[in-house]
């Protein structure tokens, strides 16, 4: 595929990050994984990504804090939460207003994950 969309997966759980990479790469995306918020910020300084998939529950810097930092430094960067935490529709709408590109629950359905990532990165 010419110019594959680039995805950055941020999750402290190795198996989850690798699984997501497997699934997305099989669809033609180019996926990189990092295991912490700090690492993701460093990566974003050097490389461009079409979408950052952010876990929320991480030690040291949690997903909220990473989201805030990314918005400060790279305001146009598309970020979606990929998390076990379930928020109500009201909270999710609010997040979207604040610039969150999407919200995907873990455990996810493969097809669901794929179609959500596709729709966010197409335009």
């Amino acid at each position, binding site marked *: 595929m010419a110019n594959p969309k680039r995805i950055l997966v941020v999750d402290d*759980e190795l*198996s*989850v990050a*690798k*699984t*997501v990479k*497997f*699934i997305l790469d*099989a*669809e033609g995306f180019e996926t990189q994984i990092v295991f912490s918020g700090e690492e993701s910020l460093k990566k974003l300084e050097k490389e461009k990504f079409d979408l950052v998939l952010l876990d929320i*529950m991480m030690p040291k810097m949690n997903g909220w804090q990473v989201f805030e930092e990314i918005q400060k430094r790279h305001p146009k960067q598309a970020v979606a939460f990929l998390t*076990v935490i*379930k*928020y*109500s*529709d*009201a909270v999710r709408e609010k997040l979207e207003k604040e610039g969150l590109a999407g919200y995907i629950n*873990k*455990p*996810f359905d*493969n097809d669901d994950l794929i179609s959500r990532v596709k729709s966010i990165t197409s335009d």
Partner: protein
Amino acid sequence: MCWVPREEITLEREFLQSVLDGIEESIVVIDRDYNIVCYNNAFNSWLKRPKKKIIGEQCYAVIHDQPVRCSPCIVRETFRTGQFFETSHSHDMGNGKKVYHETKSYPIKDASNEVKYAIYMFKDITERALIEEKVRELNKFKKKILDSAGVSINILDKSGNIMNSNRGAEELFGYTEDEVRDESHSIFYRKEDGDLLAKSMQEVLERGKFEGEVTLIKKNETEFPARLTLTTVENDSREPVAIIEIVDDLTQLKKAERIIQQQLEHLKEIDSMKEEYFYSTSHEFKTPLTSIVGLTRMLLDEKVGKLNDKQHEALELVYCDSKRLRGAVQRILDIARIDSGKMVYNIENVDLNRVFDEIIGGLNVLLESKSLTITKEVGGDVPTVLADKERLYMVIDNLMSNSIKFTPQGGKITITASKEDGNVLVQVSDTGVGIPEEDKERVFEKYYQVKSGSRDNAGGSGLGLVICRKIIEDLKGKIWVESKLGEGSTFKFTLPYKS
């Protein structure tokens, strides 16, 4: 009217009489034979019954209605000793009533200092005596009330000096009433609380009331926490004449508060430990399942290479079981959360029609495999319900799966929603084997499984309906079942909606 004896009385008769008549007290002059020789208007008025004759009559007959001389009698004492006597006495009027007299007896002596007459004066002090008796009674009553009160009550004057101390105060502070009378109540306060003392007195005198918590001191110098209430007693002109000081010993209360506080903190600790436990257990189970389910699916979809038939079949089985496992983990974690009250619901407005469609869609394969027909009916007036969408989904999915499980080939399943009595009523019916009467409540118990003859893939751990009931009840609804053995069952539950 005066019978003048022939012996010398040098005053003019009328002058003497008018002097006597001007005196408010009753006056009777009595001779040594106890005859009345002279009396005044006051006496005459006092005699309620008109007497035919007073002069010359026996004093004890006229005054006291007695047939013989009274005993004791101050007139007799005057005759005996030539002295002035006064006394108060009560005296039965014969009709059960008592009168109180203040009486005086003066001697009249002749030239040789012999007592010739006695001037007997009396004032009817019945009213005053009765009032005094009443006051004594009231004081006794007051003391009894004060002493029976469980709390410490001191009555202070306006300057804060103690006038009375009840038994409660004696027991609390350790001073007897006598020991503290006329002392300033500042003896109960700590030296450093001088300002508080002054402020409280000022406030009660200005506003009529003061309430606050203070530390007070007992006679044995121990300090204790207390609630202090000061109120004023006012006279008719609304001026304070006394201050009532009520002291509540808060020692026990404070101790109990401390214990409760400690227990609360302990509970909070346990609570947050539970929260951590649930999170980490949840995480430990869900995380591996993510890769197991996700990657198996990916392999099955041949996204990373083709599979031969055997590989496909084997992976299919793994995938199926991994989903089963994930479902079971989800259910168990949910039960644990619900059980310990740590379940957090996201309540929102849920469109039942959409939920039904999604669930039916998900169960289509199963329905087809048993050739079951499914009918859905949602009344036009059915509003959105207030519920946690995901948990509601679980409940309905559970009921539907049960129906499918217990209904034989070719049967019928119906799911309906209607508006009823301020709630929405959801019903899932089947033409299945039914539930025996005695089991209708028990199906909602943990680990209970109806002994069905069904050889279907049982799968359930018996945990489903227990969670369903807990969830529905947490969402402020009710769930129950109606059934006829051999004909089918209908599971019903209600949910509130926002009107």
